[in-house]
């Protein structure tokens, strides 16, 4: 709660102080009279201000409240006569006579101005406190409070316009005379104390005859022609006559910041009077040294904020429940049909289809292999494709792995070593074939780069440490690459054709790797290839070992046909709800 204000000099004093610290005047009377306020009112009269939005518009409402409830003119019953704050409209249909039309708070202000010598002190205190509040809340945006308050006042003005113009003009003149010059003294003293008002030259002071706050308040109430102060204020604010906005709903106060921060008192006068929209001066943007990255971050933030304001595409709600059900149905149908084909139907019996050229070339290479051939096997697939690779590789490796031949194995995935041992032990279980493990070759891009620059060194540094890499011998009769992806196979094709251009290279691929590697066969870099179970079925049938594949063949056919059916179904059903943009987000 604000401290005690000295009535003499207006200085602020702590609550418990009895005498003013500045001028030594007695403070006690003041505080006791404040305590005697009627119960209905808030404990400290200044609290009106606290309730009224903490700024000067609230001050005015507070002043009006206080007048309606003060003991002097308070009719019995107290509260009722107080118009609820929100209800600004006085019933204009009643026609009060001239004296009654004046609001009681104005009459009371005048009487107190005449009876008590220092009656204005209390009002002054409220003004100063309000000014303190203003200083604290200068940062809060005033415009909203102003506009609602201004609206309220304008409504009141509207209610009063129905009165004859002369009456209001007469009141304005009397009002102006009643507050004679004896008020000037305390007002100028306060201004000097605060040191906040604009240096006015003497001539200006003369012109603003009746420049007291009270007259001004009164003039406001009369709502007659603009008081001179207002003319001055508007000119002072922007130095140019202001054009009143055409339509009503745009009436709002846009006080230029510079004026608000400047003279407090000046501010209080201007803020109360409803001024039409003023052109805000564009403050000169301060020169700030901003680095490019900060500028980018600022732009980014601005873009983010602008983007958030942008109209956002309506995000259609996802029907999670139905998609889960569809997915479950699809799973049950697929697994059910696979189970039925595997366990409840005979293995397929298929005619041997004619061999494509890449198969024929591989078979001829196998037949031409010498008995003691040295072969290099590169395992470049993950454990997920182990089953498929076993199905495709088995018919080829059965023919290739014979006693007397030597195998060297290298792999690129961590599991490659275990997978190669599992596959080779399964195929050559009954044959004694030595297998040389050349190890794990990760980071295939680095090894492919090294393979590409493997020219003999022009000079050697003897003290260099021996490389940890195992070098590939270059006298293999053949290389077999087992791969599950197009990208993995490509790395090794590039390396091996660079390292051993003369050595025949054969590919055993999963279905996923097949389609994109045909050009390597067409260009002759690869001498033979077989990819996927579809081709392996035909290859193994020609070799008379198609048992494992034929067991799975019907289930494989069922799955493929199911996919074809679903694609067509998807096209038929969803062509109606096609993506409305038409153009895809690509």
């Amino acid at each position, binding site marked *: 709660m604000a401290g005690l204000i000295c009535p003499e000099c207006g200085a602020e004093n702590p609550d418990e102080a009895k005498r003013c610290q500045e001028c030594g005047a007695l403070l006690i009377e003041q505080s006791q009279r404040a305590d005697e306020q009627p119960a209905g009112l808030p404990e400290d009269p200044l609290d009106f201000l606290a309730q009224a939005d903490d700024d000067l518009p609230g001050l005015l409402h507070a002043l009006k409240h206080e007048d309606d409830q003060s003991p002097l003119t308070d009719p019995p019953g107290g509260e009722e006569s107080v118009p609820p704050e929100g209800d600004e409209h006085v019933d204009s249909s009643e026609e009060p006579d001239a004296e009654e039309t004046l609001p009681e708070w104005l009459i009371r202000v005048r009487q107190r101005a005449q009876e008590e010598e220092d009656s204005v002190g209390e009002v002054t205190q409220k003004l100063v406190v309000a000014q303190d509040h203003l200083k604290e809340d200068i940062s809060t945006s005033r415009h909203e409070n102003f506009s609602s308050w201004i609206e309220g006042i304008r409504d009141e003005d509207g209610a009063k316009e129905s009165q004859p113009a002369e009456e209001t003009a007469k009141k304005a003149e009397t009002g102006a005379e009643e507050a004679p010059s004896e008020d000037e003294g305390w007002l100028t003293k306060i201004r000097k104390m605060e040191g906040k008002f604009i240096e006015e030259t003497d001539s200006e002071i003369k012109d603003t005859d009746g420049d007291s706050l009270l007259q001004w308040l009164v003039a406001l109430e009369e709502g007659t022609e603009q008081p001179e102060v207002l003319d001055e204020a508007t000119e002072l604010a922007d130095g140019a006559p202001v054009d009143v906005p055409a339509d009503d709903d745009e009436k709002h106060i846009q006080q230029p910041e510079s004026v608000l921060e400047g003279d407090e008192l000046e501010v209080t006068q201007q803020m109360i009077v409803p001024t039409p929209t003023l052109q805000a001066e564009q403050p000169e943007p301060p020169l700030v040294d901003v680095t490019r*990255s900060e500028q*980018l*971050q600022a*732009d*980014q*933030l601005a*873009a*983010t904020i602008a*983007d*958030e304001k942008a109209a*956002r*595409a309506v*995000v259609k709600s*996802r029907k*999670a429940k139905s*998609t*889960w059900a569809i997915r479950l149905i699809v799973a049950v149908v697929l697994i059910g049909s696979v189970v039925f084909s595997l366990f409840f139907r005979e293995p397929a019996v298929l005619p041997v289809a004619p061999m494509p050229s890449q198969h024929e070339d591989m078979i001829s290479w196998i037949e031409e292999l010498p008995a003691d051939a040295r072969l290099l096997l590169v395992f470049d697939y*993950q*454990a*997920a494709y182990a089953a498929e690779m076993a199905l495709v590789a088995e018919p080829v490796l059965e023919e290739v792995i014979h006693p007397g031949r030597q195998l060297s194995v290298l792999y690129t*995935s*961590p*599991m490659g070593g275990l997978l190669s041992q599992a596959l080779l032990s399964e195929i050559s279980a009954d044959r004694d074939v030595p297998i040389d493990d050349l190890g794990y070759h990760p*980071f*295939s*891009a*680095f090894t*492919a780069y090294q393979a590409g620059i493997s020219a003999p060194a022009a000079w050697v540094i003897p003290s260099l440490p021996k490389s940890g890499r195992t070098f590939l011998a270059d006298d293999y009769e053949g290389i077999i690459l087992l791969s599950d*992806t*197009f*990208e993995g196979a*490509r*790395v090794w094709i*590039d390396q091996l054709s660079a390292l051993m251009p003369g050595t025949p290279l054969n590919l055993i691929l999963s279905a*996923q790797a097949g389609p*994109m590697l045909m050009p390597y066969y067409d260009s002759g870099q690869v001498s033979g290839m077989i990819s996927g179970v579809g081709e392996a079925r035909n290859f193994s049938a020609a070799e008379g070992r198609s048992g494992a594949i034929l067991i799975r063949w019907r289930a494989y056919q069922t799955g493929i046909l199911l996919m074809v059916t679903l694609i067509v179904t998807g096209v038929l059903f969803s062509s109606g709800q096609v*993506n409305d*943009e038409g*153009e*895809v*987000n*690509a």
Partner: protein
Amino acid sequence: MTWTLMGWIVIGMAAVLLAAFWILFRTHDFDAIRYSAAIQSLQCAQSSAIERGRSRQLVLGNQLNGWTYPGLGLHALACLPGFLSQESVVEGGLSVAAGDGALAVFARQITRQYYQQGFSLGLHQAGVQTMLPGPTPWSLTAGLLSTHPQKFSGSMALLGYFGAEALLWSEAALGNGGDVFSAGGTLAGQSVLFLNVRDLLIGERVFMMPGKPDANRVSLAGWLTEDVLRLLLIVGLVVGAILKMVGVL
């Protein structure tokens, strides 16, 4: 003129063009890059995820250096700062996952330095989580699906090198009501995401990503150099085919 020499000419020309455009854009502005609806909706998805308090997931792929798509891992790292700059307005919620140790170490280094230069290091621990859910493609999938189901409800961005397993990640995110954006992946990865990810950049368009929201000089110079090289390649293919037909080449 051998093919290897032709390769060196391409590298030299690309380096000179890149440096020249980079210097040029220091003084001139250049706004002639096509509008990408996918990148725009990525920004919307991230903003709405931030507003709804949902998490954001960024996957950098499972390989730093691949041979077939060179530079895809480096490209994912180049996009990372663009995702970090959004985090300045939020208190955590972005998790960066990589399926290769080197990628994870690079990502954490970039994130830490970004916070040290820009905001405050204190935010780093609470802010962005860089992790390795699994060291192989399928263990990365297991890590994403099992440890982070609740993290899929916001927006998910897929960058770098990944295969067909990415379909499981995108279905998990879409099933949780999240938004998915993809700018990367092998041919298999892009072909499976073609089915259910609307905001998908295919082929060379994945390289539109870095810096698109706040196109800095380096990205602009890169795009313009790519356009010039692509036009030269198209002209070269046509001229080469004609010369080959007439027997000159």
